[in-house]
């Protein structure tokens, strides 16, 4: 990415740094405010919004960490994100394999149908999806969210995976078939392992999309036991409306998994977004 062929031209970089610092402050101050605010008493928050706490109140954080509902929401979000991702990637990989490696009548039409799905706003479908899920008894069922998320995740995943599968030379496939591989054997034992970087990318995109989803769980889950983290946060804010410090603590703890995952998977996430943007 970065070519350090020669020594960097020494220009005055002070203004650049100043701009970067201002933008960095714009990004970080809200997060730092939340982190420190979680350690403050509510009375202190309004008088001392941004300084260090006079006394570090840990009760806000420990109360959240000690509450069953927080961990239940965390589990629900994780479960739904993982199953959604496995399902999306599995189905998209199978379809992407066919679209990349088989020539048949109607292939381009079918592929166009999938790619058109990129342009279908989710909000347009939400009412009929609600009615459909109710008909099948999938309301307040994680499956209702998982299947829908997977369906809407298919277009982008198929496009990215198909592109990657195409880039694997045909000679490898021929060699595998000559060696007695079935199509599924070739797909499972050769193509998927070779496509690991692309699989990682689309998986990260699917996990983040599922983890952050709000609209769909909002209409599907009415029982508290099935709430995901975004639903829980929204409800927590309503319940403790006057207890700002406690909400801040909840927010910070809810940020930890997302930011931790980002730290681990940054490369794949950014790679996926730039690939998705240019191929979408």
């Amino acid at each position, binding site marked *: 990415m970065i070519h350090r062929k020669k020594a960097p*031209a020494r220009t005055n*970089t002070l203004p*650049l740094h100043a701009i*970067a610092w201002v*933008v*960095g402050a714009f*990004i970080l101050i*809200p*997060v730092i405010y*939340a982190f420190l605010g979680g350690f403050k008493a509510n009375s202190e928050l*309004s008088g001392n*919004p*941004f300084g260090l706490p006079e006394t570090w109140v840990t009760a806000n954080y420990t109360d959240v960490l000690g509450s069953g509902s927080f961990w239940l929401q965390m589990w629900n979000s994780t479960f739904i994100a993982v199953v959604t991702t496995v399902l999306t990637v599995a*189905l998209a990989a*199978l*379809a992407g*394999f*066919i679209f990349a490696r*088989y*020539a*048949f009548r109607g292939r381009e039409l079918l592929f166009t*149908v*999938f790619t058109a*799905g990129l*342009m279908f*706003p989710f*909000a*347009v*479908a*939400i*009412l*009929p*999806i609600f009615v*459909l899920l109710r008909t099948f008894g999938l309301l307040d069922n994680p499956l209702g969210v998982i299947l*829908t998320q997977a*369906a809407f995740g*298919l277009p982008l995943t198929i496009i990215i995976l198909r592109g990657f599968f*195409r880039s694997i030379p045909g000679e*490898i496939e021929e*060699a*595998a078939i*000559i*060696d007695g591989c079935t199509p599924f054997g070739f797909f499972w*034992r050769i193509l998927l392992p070779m496509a690991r970087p692309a699989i990682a990318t689309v998986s990260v995109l699917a996990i983040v999309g599922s983890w*952050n989803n*709000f*609209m769909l769980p909002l209409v599907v889950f009415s029982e508290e036991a099935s709430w995901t*983290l*975004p639903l829980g*946060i*929204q409800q927590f804010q309503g319940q403790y409306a006057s207890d700002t410090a406690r*909400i801040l603590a909840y*927010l910070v703890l809810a940020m930890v998994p*997302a*930011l931790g995952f980002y730290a681990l998977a*940054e490369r794949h996430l*950014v790679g996926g*977004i730039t690939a998705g943007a*240019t191929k*979408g």
Partner: protein
Amino acid sequence: MTTLTRGPEAVKFPAPAPAVKKRGRWLTITLFLLPALVLFLLLVVAPILVAVYSSAFRWNGFGGLPTNFIGFDNFTRLFGTEIFAQDLWHLLVLVLFSVCVQLPFSLAIAMLLNQRIRGRALYRVVFFAPYVLSEVITGVLFSLILSPESGMANQLLSVFGIESEWLADPDTVMPSLFLVMTWKYFGFHMMIYLAGRQNIPNELIEAAQIDGASSWRTFRHITLPLLGPTIRISIFLSVIYTIQLFDLVWILTGGGPSHSSETMAVTMMEYGFKRSQVGYASAISVVMFVLSLVFALIYQRFVMRRDLEGATTNMGGRR
């Protein structure tokens, strides 16, 4: 591929007769493609068709498919309401702000982080981080920060004599919403621009500099035109996203005060789920659909055509 050893299967099975092979081929195609296709048709295509269908009915959302056909009445009712006119106005305002303020800002930051400055890798990671946080976390965080009584914004800004109701004042709610959107999304566009910039050969930039072009002229006449495809896609994504904007508004303001920040998706959810006017709400979603589709078609036909031409010829070239 050294792990692929010649198994006993290779010896046992002679090449299949063409007819069998052909049937096996179709079986494979069907088996591999069907699960994705069924799921996609059932939960993406069918619901959108149903939304179009039910927009022509007065329907509360219960009991099978709707029966009370009223033609285009939902649409005529919708186009007559002030709320819908406001929704359209908000869409226009947000699109204009995004395209004229947020995206140039993202581009400027991308160009800044493309310079050799110390710590730029860290800046990139930090600037992109809000994109990973959910809309709900972002929304709740900023609703606390912008809260008129105890919020951080007023505490800090009161030093400069600035205080406002922010989200509770119809005059400041849209700028506030836009500020939150910028906080969350400019890093996303910045990353796209950085990736686009990386595809431009450095030789071109260097050649311009050697010829004595100032950095602004180099940017204006070399970098910016070559970034064209990236910028066009980023505008496209931004507009499509704004048409269906829901989560942030729902959390930050619920569309208020008195509909002054309401978007089409918020109006749709109000009527669909709170007032059980599913037919009417479907009409709103159909308008969102048509707006997205018309915008996408026009945009791709007239703006992105040049970018797509290369892509399709490339696709046709293989297999």
